[in-house]
């Protein structure tokens, strides 16, 4: 009973913090002094006053839903709050799998998000000071710089590969499956070269598909081949698994994670959990949501929790975004980002999933079983890398 009450208090406290964050962020983005040109312009269309009428998270419904079309095309400067004018600014793009990519300006958010995430990584598997391999997309993406910052924040150095997922999308649309496979092999070959380079890499970011491709390459002896080509001695025990290659921790995300894939990774690629893997759900707009630790006892279910109060996830009725579905029921993921750099109220993500209960570590709603929103799934190419 006491435990239940404690969770209730935690949930209440979290909601109080979320409401405070809403007030602070809305004041910042709509104030004439610090506000964001896009939102100041948009406010002229509203029949409410964001500075006076928005007090709680629920009040964000006044904004309707955020349209991702607003993020396509420029000038991107309209998204920089006046309060941050003159600060060095990055622009990051989404995958570009659905036409003109969406863009987001960032100053420090990606560093803050990944430093917060870093606190959730167990040091046993992600040792401080160890080097990282970024086996994921390069180019104008937040992920590549974020992983590099994560490695540096933990005292290591990040080695990266070149990977352009947009080219893979084109190959798939042209039905050039053979070429797409060759490109994947090219990505893996770069990773093997880095692993063969003697850089003492223990941690890695990768996507489900590239994890499977790396595992396949290792099992077929391609890292050992690299060692032979370089005239290096193959260590006792060989190099035919991710564990044998020296990796101890994997931070994984980027595309859909199914429980069955997670189980396969755990049982068949990562030596029954000897190598630790933590899935994440995130994107350029939100930042990243961490998962509950995965385990066989939980059926390898993956439940994600947003980094509240900087972002919040709601699982809503696809026909009525104001209505949360019941716990355990399926709905569309509605995303809200609440930082002083970027305000995105109620953005309907291209994903669906089941609403999850709060728990002590994350005393707010989560989402599990995340997959492409069924109404879009047939027409969109996702998760190519």
């Amino acid at each position: 009973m006491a435990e239940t009450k404690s969770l209730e208090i935690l949930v209440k406290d979290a909601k109080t913090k979320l409401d405070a964050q809403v007030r602070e962020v809305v004041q910042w983005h709509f104030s004439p002094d610090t506000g964001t040109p896009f939102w100041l312009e948009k406010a002229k269309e509203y029949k409410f006053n964001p500075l006076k009428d928005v007090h709680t998270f629920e009040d964000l419904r006044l904004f309707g839903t955020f349209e991702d079309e607003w993020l396509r095309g420029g000038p991107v400067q309209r998204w920089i709050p006046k309060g941050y004018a003159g600060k060095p600014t990055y622009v990051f793009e989404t995958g570009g799998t659905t036409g003109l990519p969406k863009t987001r300006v960032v100053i420090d958010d990606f560093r803050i998000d990944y430093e917060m995430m870093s606190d959730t990584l167990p040091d046993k598997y992600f040792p401080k000071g160890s080097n990282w391999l970024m086996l994921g997309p390069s180019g104008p993406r937040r992920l590549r710089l974020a992983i590099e910052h994560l490695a540096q924040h933990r005292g290591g150095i990040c080695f990266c590969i070149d990977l352009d997922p947009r080219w893979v999308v084109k190959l798939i649309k042209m039905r050039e499956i053979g070429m797409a496979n060759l490109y994947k092999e090219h990505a893996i070959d770069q990773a093997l070269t880095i692993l063969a380079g003697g850089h003492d890499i223990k941690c890695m970011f990768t996507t489900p598909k590239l994890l499977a491709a790396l595992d396949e390459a290792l099992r077929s002896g391609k890292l050992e081949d690299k060692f032979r080509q370089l005239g290096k001695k193959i260590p006792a025990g060989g190099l035919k698994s991710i564990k044998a290659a020296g990796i101890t921790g994997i931070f994984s995300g980027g595309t859909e994670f199914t429980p069955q894939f997670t189980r396969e990774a755990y049982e068949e690629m990562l030596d029954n959990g000897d190598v630790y893997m933590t899935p994440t759900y995130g994107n350029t707009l939100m930042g990243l949501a961490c998962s509950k630790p995965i385990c066989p006892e939980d059926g390898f279910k993956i439940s994600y929790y947003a980094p509240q109060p900087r972002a919040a996830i709601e699982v809503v009725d696809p026909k009525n975004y104001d209505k949360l579905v019941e716990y355990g029921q399926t709905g569309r993921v509605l995303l809200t980002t609440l930082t002083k750099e970027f305000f995105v109220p109620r953005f309907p993500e291209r994903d669906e999933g089941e609403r999850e209960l709060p728990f002590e570590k994350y005393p707010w709603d989560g989402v599990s079983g995340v997959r492409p929103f069924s109404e879009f799934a047939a027409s969109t190419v996702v998760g190519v890398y």
Partner: protein
Amino acid sequence: MLHIPALRLGKPYTSLNKTQLVHHVTGETVAEVSQVNGSQIVRDISKMEEARNELQAIPMDKLMHMVKEAGRIFATDTLPCGDQAQSFDDYIRNLSSTTGSPMVFCKRNAGKVEYVLRNIDTIIAGLTRGLDMSILDKGHGSQDGRTLCFVPTCSSFGAILPSNSPGVHSLWAPTPALKIPLILKPGREEPWTPFRVIQAYLKAGIPAAALNFCPTDHAGASEILRGTGRSMLFGDSTTTEPYKNDHRVEIHGPGYSKVLIGEDKISHWKDYIDIIAESIAANGGRSCINVSAVWVPSHGKEIAHAISEKLAKIKARSYDDPNAELAAFANPDVPERISGMIDNLLKTPGASDITEKVRGTPRFVKEGRCAWLLPAIVHCETYDHPLANKEFLFPYASVVECPQSDMLKLIGPTLVATAITEDKDFAHALLNSTNVDRLNLGPIPTNRLTWDQPHEGNLFTHLYKQRAYQQSGF
């Protein structure tokens, strides 16, 4: 709830990801099927060289005996089906329930699979043109005074299978008898036959590691085609197009099988209506060896009318009716879309659905969630009408008028051609035609097979290549 596991190296594997199979009449879930990831299949394929070595170690005569025994087991024994036991009758009922194919068709098609297994020596002799099987045991040998040596082209053979007709399973079934491990992706609605054949193989003593049953998605199917050294792929032209230049993949797409009547026989066209009707409608018109076009030099409209009078008698019947002649569609939306597509194409002038006029009722029939398409014979005034060269999953054929001299230039790829002619020049041209895969000269229905000859590709030449071999003493 019946659960059908995947079989990885012959061992049952229960996945967290399962698809549901529903009864085509009631919509009730009949079974769940465990789905494996493409990367799991790739991992298993990497172990197939060892599995092939196990098969290679079994002498051909013993292997043939095992396969024959598997044929008996398939047709008579009660076998494991996931967590339940399945008799042959249960199998037929299950198969019919999820595919919509009438039980009478299912039994007939299962008979083809049984025949191939029980007569594997005849089948292999047909595929190898009478090769002394001991040559495959040793890798080389001598026959009729000639040195022969064959080497496998692959460590495993993959098959991406359809759901439309279980008879196609007779095409891959001889693979273990040729000492090559199997990686099977069953059709979504038809896991039953491949699963049962594998259970029969296991009971007959074929090494488990060589038998893989891998229900999976499109990405998994691509991994099978990428990872196995040789494979066969069933599907429509959209599915098969990316692999058309990949010699490792034997494509089984639409057949566009045809009956051609020569000028010398056209005045006797009435004598051939029964053969043409059987070629169109046997097995519910679902096979690629069913005729989808009848090419004639004249009398097109009369021929279309005569075929229609015969086929218009076919009615939609329940899946358990022994007189059923049509398969229902597992997904009732599909026949409605197909019928709509035909109606749309009929708007192009120069074609009409003669059978619909003769029957006086629409071709699309729906009762509850069950739907059928009744036969459609479309008369096309010209060969280039959009309905002249179409193939659908029901008894459909166009009747096209074309001068005999132009036929072979215009028919396009044809899996089976029955040419009704005694004209030697026309017969010679047919024998030389690269468009025709299997040729019947004379009034033979296209659905009649001769099992001692390869059809739809040759599994043996797909799985083995001949190489030069010399040996000398020291």
